[in-house]
């Protein structure tokens, strides 16, 4: 692909950067509202307790307090339950258990951070001061915190509607067929894993501000949302009953999401609900400790997996048993994550013919768990890529070679996996070839020996991931229990003077859509980049859209823009035919100009647009005036990015410290619109994956349910000196079913990296007889593992 200076494939500098670099970004908390009030939410300090009584009298008398609301108020006002929008049916065909989730706890609190009261005051400090004066009489109950034992008899019960804390017991694949394959296997590799719980920690804390106009009955919610239309739909149709046309949701500049800002939370619900009751605008911004306690967490699986291989190392079958944590209440898409976004990915890049997975989802007295960057796919990749590397070690086969032996051949696409998905395209061997080359895999043993001479343990790890993203074909989603469509919308609106607004249902919270989408339109319609404005994030101005998550913005949102551009061209051809006195069939469009094929007669798009708005010389009886086209795009399939990461680590056995000395990522994202932006997505994803592997861990005290890792002082976020610079590269197999030929790139880094890092750590410790290390492989965990291995060796 030859890169035009600003078109598809060009490393265009981002147009949004000017405002972010000069302090002129506008995030929710930056919003200036007339006569604002401020909300503060009193949160439960207990993981599980009955509320005997709440006394707000002293608090209500505090300076500046405007109103205090409790669960009694919301219950009396019949505020609905927060919903889970995806029905997962268990083995017996019954829908998952769906206990109610009141925005303010009514008589029971179920996690540390559960909302107990809302204080509205003249200032944020006054609201907070008053909340401290609210007296809540709690009767503390035993809490269920340990996921591995949540389904055991005798575990504290989270909801009476979900006996035994079981939300669902779901399976995919035919167990008997898989067992039969295992019976014939030459080798079986077994693996027990804990996929550690993570806290998303977008740098901008969640925030919401609401205003109610009593004159028009119009509500406005400014929210840190990845999908403002979906949020509006949930609030309108399910929770608050505000007519959809009377609620405007604006998601302005949003400071990172990573999934945590997809969901409909209690906080924004209550701010909207309370606005007319207070009669003034209400603002709320989470303090970081509230983000830790109440943002939906990610991952949190306990898994046993077994892989059956034949004598040549070909995979015969895979079986996986997982307990997945739902937390205390079901967040918006929680049920889908450990099922349809997890078990359907267990084929990975391999021809494994038989797969069975059983997933039991459990309630615990912890914060809700939902999608976090990758959502199910990192968990699947961690299982597959861990067990494949373990099998390679057991069989003494080179891990890259074992992968190559089992890759789906490039001639087999479209490839139907045994777990529902049909991969549309891919070519995996050249990716791992490139990854081994870039990472100098051949030279590794030399580097290991050199490190050993310095007393260091060096290891190398592979992770060959696949993901299904670009969510998603609506009918498939419907068949699987999803409650929404998964198309995207776009509108291309020319102004009479020739500049363009591109209105998109996608939402940018760091991805750079304002640049990438403008590049697409510039490339397609020949309009200079600086004349294109991409508008997103406001239900009042943009078409109904599904928002951004699941690496869908370009594959689905970008495709909708392409469709709208096609309509612009089709209409423009009719106008141009009139202006050029030619037949429509003879008009060609190229580089922003309509031409009569085979002649030098031409008219630029700008002139056609002007004619459409000033239709004096115009085919007015056949063509409507104006140049403003919208399109909806529903994808034919998911897209399937794939790649291989190679991580090399060096461990100091004296301290247990792991240093990542080299990290390579070779990805197939299909066609690439802006390589600079794509590389940035890969870097960020890798570091979130490295964070999971080495640093990050959401820890609840197993008896009290207190969140121990509840601040940046306790929860180890990756810092600049925890990671190296990365070597990234691409192989391209265009997606065959979307007009841009693109796949998603936002989640890949985070999906693949935990297994790459952990395989490197395991490889480094392998010579000591170590089989596995718990994730995150913190210095303490690694050091203890080494000590354990040395004790064992001495026995």
């Amino acid at each position: 692909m030859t890169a035009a200076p600003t078109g598809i494939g060009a490393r265009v500098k981002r147009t949004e950067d000017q405002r972010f670099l000069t302090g002129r970004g506008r995030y929710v908390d930056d919003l200036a509202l007339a006569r604002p009030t401020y909300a503060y939410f009193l949160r439960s300090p207990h993981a599980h307790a009955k509320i005997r009584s709440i006394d707000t009298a002293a608090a209500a008398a505090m300076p500046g307090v405007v109103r205090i609301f409790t669960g009694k108020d919301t219950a009396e006002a019949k505020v609905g339950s927060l919903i889970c929008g995806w029905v997962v049916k268990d083995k017996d065909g019954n829908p998952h258990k769906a206990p109610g989730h009141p925005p303010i706890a009514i008589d029971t609190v179920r996690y540390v951070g559960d909302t107990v009261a809302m204080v509205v005051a003249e200032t944020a400090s006054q609201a907070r001061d008053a909340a401290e004066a609210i007296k809540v009489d709690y009767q503390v109950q035993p809490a269920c915190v340990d996921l591995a034992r949540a389904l055991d008899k005798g575990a504290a019960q989270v909801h009476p509607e979900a006996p035994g804390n079981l939300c669902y017991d779901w399976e995919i694949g035919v167990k008997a067929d898989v067992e039969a394959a295992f019976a014939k296997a030459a080798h079986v590799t077994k693996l027990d894993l804990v996929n550690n719980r993570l806290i998303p920690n977008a740098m901008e804390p969640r925030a919401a501000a609401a205003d109610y106009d009593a004159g028009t009955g119009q509500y406005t919610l400014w929210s840190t949302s990845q999908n403002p239309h979906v949020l509006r739909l949930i609030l309108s149709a399910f929770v608050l009953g505000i007519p959809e046309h009377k609620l405007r949701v604006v998601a302005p500049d949003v400071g990172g999401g990573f999934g945590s800002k997809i969901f409909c939370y209690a906080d924004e619900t209550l701010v909207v609900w309370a606005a007319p009751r207070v009669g003034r605008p209400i603002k709320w911004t989470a303090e970081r400790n509230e983000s830790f306690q109440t943002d939906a967490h990610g991952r949190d699986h306990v898994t046993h997996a077994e892989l059956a291989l034949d004598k040549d190392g070909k995979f015969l079958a895979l079986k996986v048993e997982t307990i997945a944590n739902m937390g205390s209440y079901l967040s918006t898409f929680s049920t889908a994550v450990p099922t349809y976004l997890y078990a359907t990915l267990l084929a990975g890049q391999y021809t494994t013919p038989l797969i069975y997975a059983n997933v039991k989802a459990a309630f615990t007295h912890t914060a809700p768990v939902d999608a976090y960057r990758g959502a199910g796919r990192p968990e699947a990749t961690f299982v597959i890529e861990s067990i494949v590397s373990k099998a390679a070690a057991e069989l003494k086969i080179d891990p890259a070679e074992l992968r190559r032996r089992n890759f789906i051949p490039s001639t087999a696409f479209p490839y139907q996996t045994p777990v529902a998905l049909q991969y549309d395209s891919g070519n995996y061997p050249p990716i791992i070839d490139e990854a081994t080359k870039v990472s100098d895999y051949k030279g590794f043993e030399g580097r290991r020996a050199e490190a050993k001479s310095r007393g260091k343990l060096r290891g190398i790890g592979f992770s060959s991931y696949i993901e299904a993203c670009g969510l998603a074909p609506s009918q498939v989603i419907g068949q699987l229990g999803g409650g929404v469509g998964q198309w995207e919308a776009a509108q291309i609106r020319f102004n009479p003077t020739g500049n363009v607004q591109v209105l998109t249902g996608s939402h940018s919270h760091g991805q750079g859509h304002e640049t990438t989408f403008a590049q697409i339109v510039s490339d397609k319609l020949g309009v200079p980049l600086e004349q294109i404005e991409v508008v997103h994030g406001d239900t009042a101005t943009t078409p109904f859209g599904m928002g951004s998550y699941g690496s869908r913005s370009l594959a689905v949102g970008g495709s909708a823009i392409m469709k709208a551009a096609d309509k612009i061209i089709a209409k423009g051809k009719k106008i141009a035919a009139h202006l050029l006195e030619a037949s429509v069939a003879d008009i060609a469009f190229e580089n922003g100009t309509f031409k009569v094929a085979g002649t030098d007669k031409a008219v630029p798009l700008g002139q056609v647009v002007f004619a459409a708005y000033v239709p004096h010389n115009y085919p007015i009886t056949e063509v409507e005036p104006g140049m403003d086209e919208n399109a909806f795009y529903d994808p034919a399939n998911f897209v399937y990015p794939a790649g291989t990461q190679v991580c090399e680590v060096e461990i100091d056995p004296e301290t247990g410290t792991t240093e990542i000395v080299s990290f390579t990522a070779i990805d197939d994202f299909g066609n690439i619109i802006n390589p600079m932006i794509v590389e940035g997505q890969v870097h960020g994803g890798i570091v979130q994956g490295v964070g999971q592997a080495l640093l990050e861990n959401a820890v609840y005290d197993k008896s009290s349910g207190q969140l121990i890792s509840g601040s940046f002082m306790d929860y180890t976020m990756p810092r600049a000196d925890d990671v190296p610079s990365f070597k990234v590269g691409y192989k391209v197999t265009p997606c065959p079913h979307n007009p841009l030929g693109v796949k998603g790139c936002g989640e890949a880094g985070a999906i693949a990296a935990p297994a790459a890092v952990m395989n490197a750590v395991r490889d480094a410790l392998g010579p000591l007889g170590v089989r596995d290390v718990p994730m995150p492989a913190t210095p303490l965990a690694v050091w203890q593992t080494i000590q354990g291995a040395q004790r064992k060796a001495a026995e």
Partner: protein
Amino acid sequence: MSISVSMTVNGKAVSGKVEARTLLVQFLRENLSMTGTHVGCDTSQCGACVVHVDGQSVKSCTMLAVQAEGAKVMTIEGLAPSADKLHPMQEAFRDNHALQCGFCTPGMVMSAVDMVKRHNYQLDEATVRRELEGNLCRCTGYHNIVKAILAAAPAMKAAGV
């Protein structure tokens, strides 16, 4: 109880009434409506609120507004030399795609400018990474931030800033 406080922010004399507990970042954001300086945490870890106070980088959430009485404060809004020209560090962030969501960016840029000056425009990758201890970014994986700062150091020297 409110206290009067006066200081210079981005070259302009400003004053306002604050509570004793009002943080410098709150004074900037709430009293002066200068919302370029961000608050990303409550434990002085994230660095989104870094500004310069009397020429040194400071987390404006660790300082009371009254402690800045009489000080010269520079925020991200005051860094660029003019409306149509960016500071070399801002340029380098843009050229190297060192920002995504933009939330940590003001603090990152302000820390980076101070870092370059403290190291007399001489930096290497390891130093930059170590010096970024006090600034968290969740989007970029730091790769491009490190690149940008390394690129900005000679550019700042050449520009005499």
